[in-house]
Each structure stands twice: as structure tokens, then as C-alpha cells.
């Protein structure tokens, strides 16, 4: 599932400025603060993390463009509990809740 070398080359250029190092362990996007920018390392739905049928959350995330290697940036967050979040993914913006974003691991 590793996607080294698969770069889109047109993501928001913020990830360079953010200075993330390749050595840090992937963390869930659901915990990331507003302004975070990075790349998707993998999509893993933890057991019991979704009320949807098995595999469904993963499929929906992929259908909205959350795939390995894609550039992501948290643009906005809601007023209450900093939820939901608006995520720039490559060239589009998608709103989702932090709960579902826990399945997206980013570096």
C-alpha cells in the first residue's frame, strides 16, 4: 500500500513549508490541527470505528479522493468541538467529521 514516488506534483505547496520530516510516524488526520498539511500515508478503518458495514467507510473515503499519496490540508474547522473539518485534498475541498478522519493516516 506504500505509494512512494507517486506524487501528484500539484498539491498545496504548504507541506514543504510545514517542514514535516519523512521519519515521523503517520498520525490520524482526525487529530490534526487546523492549518495542518501533509500527505496521506494510508487509510485504515479501526475495528468498531465506523457504524457502516465493513469496508464501506474506506470505499467512501476513496470515492471522495482520500487515497494514498494525496496531499491534504485542513482549511477550516467547526465552532463546536473543532468539528467538522474542511480538508483540501489535491484540488478539491471536502467536509467531514473528525471521527471519520481518524481512519486517514497522514505524515
Amino acid at each position, binding site marked *: 500500500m506504500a*505509494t512512494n514516488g*507517486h506524487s*501528484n*506534483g*500539484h498539491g*498545496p*505547496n504548504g507541506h514543504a513549508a510545514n517542514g514535516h520530516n519523512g521519519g515521523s510516524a503517520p498520525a490520524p488526520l482526525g487529530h490534526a490541527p487546523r492549518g495542518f498539511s501533509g500527505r496521506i500515508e494510508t487509510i485504515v478503518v479501526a475495528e468498531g470505528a*465506523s*457504524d*457502516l458495514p465493513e*469496508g464501506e*467507510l*474506506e*470505499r*467512501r*473515503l*476513496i*470515492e*471522495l*479522493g482520500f*487515497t*494514498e*499519496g*494525496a496531499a491534504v490540508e485542513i*482549511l*477550516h*474547522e*467547526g*465552532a*463546536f*468541538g473543532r*468539528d*467538522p473539518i*474542511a480538508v*483540501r485534498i*489535491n*484540488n*478539491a*475541498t*471536502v*467536509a*467531514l*467529521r473528525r*471521527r*471519520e478522519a481518524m481512519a486517514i493516516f497522514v505524515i
Partner: protein
Amino acid sequence: MTVMAETGTRRFALIGTPNSGKTALFNALTGSRQKVANYPGVTVERKSGALRTPSGRSVSLVDLPGTYSLRARSPDEEVTRDVVLGRLASETAPDLLVCVADATNLRLALRLVLELKSVGRPLLLVLNMIDIAKHRGVEIDIDKLSAELGVPVITAAAVRRGGTDELLRRLDEMAAGEMGTPAASAWQAPTTSELRAAQREADRIIKAAVKLPAKPDTLTTRLDAVLLHPVAGLVILLAILFVMFQAVFSWAQPAMDLIQSGFDGLGTLVQTWVPDGLVQSFLKDGVINGVGSVLVFLPQILILFLFILLLEDLGYMARAAFLMDRIMGGAGLHGRAFIPLLSSFACAIPGIMATRVIDNPRDRLTTILVAPLMTCSARIPVYTLIISAFIPNKEVWGFASLQGLVMFGLYTVGIVSALGVSFIAKQFFWRDTPTPPFMLELPDYKLPRPRSVLMGLYTRAKMFLQRAGTTIFSMMVLIWFLASFPRPPAGATEPAIDFSIAAWLGHLIEPLLAPVGFNWQISVALIPGMAAREVAVAALGTVYSIEGGKEAAEQIGQVLANKWTLATALAMLAWYVFAPQCASTLAVIKRETGSWKWMAVTFAYMLTLAYIAALITYNVAVALGAG
């Protein structure tokens, strides 16, 4: 050219992801030659239209519900899948799939194209909004894209003049050619690894054929910085709603006065030229008064729809869902429920039908149950009438009108009670039901096109006028009949209506409604008001005008101000916030939930709330000296 191509009408289908501008393209291609119906057995709207190609060939075009994948998750998406795969018994599979993509946002659309390719039907990819893409510096190598995808590609700008010329020429060519018999479809629901592979392939093709600018749409970014700001965003959303309701109340007034005086003039004409008696009464009290008192609200309904259409075309509706998600979630509703509920301000029927975007059945049901509590435009006539008769027209805080504020208050009560009811339903009935995810694409802002807004307004106006011409008109005739027959005996001194069936019916129900301060005239008006809320206004007009005889030429508002106490008026307002007085809404609930049970539940809980609210309002008002 074959005989088939000469005579048979080709059937093309538009398919695409949400926000691809598919509907704008459909409007541009078919113009006003559109037909909206339902797919049999389901309540998904079937939008189709006739298209004439440059060489005069006629093509029937169907606009399929937007979807990211054929892996259907909602009734709408199931229709799209079934039509594409030719699984629908009522419909032969389309001869050509026209896949519409937003040229500025190709990633998800190209994955859909790859999936559609596996269906094995003729396919054409249209890169819509190419003008915006060019303006932003997106460079697309069309030939390369077409070669990589193995699908013909054409560009279009649906909202520009001449923006669909090239597409029309291409459709013409394809309609003329031999389309072949549809092969059996090889499509199967993709697994996660197939989805991943397809997205990777789509990304590879984009990298090969598309050059994107370094920066995303800066206008959208800048606007969102304010409009999606945790605090400012919510304040702006509230302000938009506030302006909307003030506008409905004040902007419409001149047009309403004009319509009102038109009907008044018509009534006077009839009174002058038609001899006294039944015919005059029928024309004046039944037809002109009845229909006029409903038609007068057309300006308000159009203003409300104007706001909703503008916000939708602007791309703001998805933002509103984002801002409201937590608040709605606290009440046990889905963030996506915001759009259906907002549409319910116009009318609960499109609102309830719009709940199809909610894929979780429980969430959808809750939204359907509370949608009729949102203040629909049919309540506006009743509210306006009572407010202008009983609430003084003065300014408060130097900028807002007291009447507008009361109106705003009534809307607020509707919203709060909708949230309250869904909260209770979630807490007590559906405790163990899991929360479904909220995932929504936020499209780039686009300036609404006057043409598409006008087309939307035209459709709404037509629907309203049709309703006024059929349901409301026949109800008015019925009311006039009930209020006029049997005729009073010769030499009777009491008003004629006292002898009528209406009076008898009204007196029959009156004891039930007396505790909430309703007299028998209101009781009579509420009966046809069950069919449609706004009819009650007309019915009151008819009842009071037949009661008053010729002298009651004065306006209905003045009559009410003389005949009702303030407590009765307020109780009537409270009643109307909740009462399930709309046969069409109940019918739609039955159809959408597929059960009589949920229709009955809605009717019962709303009626109970209406009675309790009116009872409390009346008694509190009387205790405060407004009796």
C-alpha cells in the same frame, strides 16, 4: 445512414458527480423543453428533455441524479445505476452515456469515467466549465486525455452563449452513427483495492494530460476564510436567514398590493355587472375572493425561492451544511438534513423529497418527520394576514419592523420545535442507532447565472399557479357551496350563512376548538385548510363575506381585526406553527416512507402539538388581558 437513425429517437443520458454543472448543461441543451416526472415505484425525479441537434435530429436526453460511483448508496444513486446498466424495466438503456465533469476538478470524475467504461456502453466525456478552467490557468491536453482514457472528450461551457455548440455537433455525429446493440454489462461493484487502483490510474492520467496552476481558486479560499470562520460564519448564516425573512415580508408588499387591488377591481366589476344572486355570489365570493386571496402571495413565495436558488447556485448551501453539522447533530440530525430543512421553508414537499440525499434510513426518516414543522410558504398567507391585522406596524430598535420580528419569531419557533422533536425521537426511540458519517464536497463558489435562476423561479411559479388553479380553486368552490346551501328561508333576518351546511359543521367541531379560542367560523375554515394551509385564509374570507352580505366588501384583515380577540389571533398563529394541515405533504410522507404508519405518526404528533400550543397561547393571552 440507416432507417433506424432516421426515424428512431436516440436516447442519451447525462451522468456526473455532484457539482459538475450537469444540471446547467441539461438546461442549456434542452431549454424549456423539459419534463419532470417520477421513476415508477420510487420517488426519484426523472428529468428528461428533448434536444434538437444542428442537423435537426431529435434526441431525448435524461438527466440522471449525480453520483460519485455506480455503487449506489441512496435511492437516487440506485436509479442512476439501474438506468446506466439497463436494469430498469420502464426504460431501455441509453444509447449514449454523456459523462459530465467539472474541468477545474477532474480527479473524482475521471475515476467515475473509468468505472463507466467497464459498463461497455458508448461513452462521451464532457469537460464542463472549461471557461472557468482556462481562466484559472488549468491546461488540459484534450487529445492526450482522450487517448489515455480511451473515451472521446469534448469541452463545453454550459452557461456561456455558444458554449455547447461543439458538444451539439458531436452529439449530432454520434446520433447519426450506428450505435450498435447494447452489450451485456460487465460492471460489478468495485472492491476497495479496485477503487484505489482506479483512482491511481485517474491520477496518472491527470498528471499526463492536465497542468494545474500552483494555487487553488483564491477567491473561494478568501471567501471561505470568512464564511466558514467558526464565529463569523455562523453570524453571517444567521444574518442571511434574517435578511431573507425581512425581504419576504417587506419587498413583496408593492406587488401584493397590486395583485390585491386587481382582484378587488374584478370583484367590483362583477358586482356592478352581474345581477344580485347566486351567480354573483359564486363569482365574487367563491372564485375571485377565494383564488385572489391565495394568488396574492405569489410575490412572497417567489422572493423566498429566489434566495434559496441564489444560495444553491452560489455554492453556499454545502457551506451552510458544514456550519450547521454540529448543531444539527446535537439534535440528532445529519448535517445534510440542513438542505432539505431549508428547502422546507419554501415547501415541505420538495424538502421531504430532498431528504433522499441522506443515505441513512433512520436519519432520513427523522428529517422527513420534522420537515413539515419548518415554516413553509403556505403558512405565509395565514401569518401575514393575522400579523397585519393584529400586530401594530411600528419600528423597533430603529431598524426592524415589529411585524417582521413576529414573523421571524414564528419561523424560530418552527425551527426550534423541529430540532426539539428530532432530539426527542433520537433520545427515546432510536437510542441505539449508530451515527452515520457526514461527508460532503464543498464546491468552488460560482456566480449564479440569471438564466438558471429565472428558470428555477419560473418552474416554482408554474407549480404554485397550477396548485392555485386546481386544488385551491376546487376547495374554494366547495367552501362557497357549503357556506351558501341550503339557502335561508324567505324572510329570515339572520345572515344567510347561519342556515348553511358550513355553519352546521362549524358548530359541530366548535366545542372541540372552543378551549383554544376558535369560533365556528375558524372551525369551518380549518376543514378545507386540511387540504392546503393557505386555503384557510380564503375560506375565512368566503365565510365572513357571505355572512356579512354585500356590506362585507371590506378587506378580510379588517374583518378579522373586528371579529377576533387578540388572544384568538395569537392562538391561531400558534396553531399554524404546528398543525398538519396539508394533504399533499402527508401524501408525500406516505410515499417517501412507503408506509401509512409514518404518515399517521406525523399527523398525530403535529395535531397534538398544535392543540397544546394553541391552548397554552390562548389561556396565557386571556390571563394577560388579551381576551
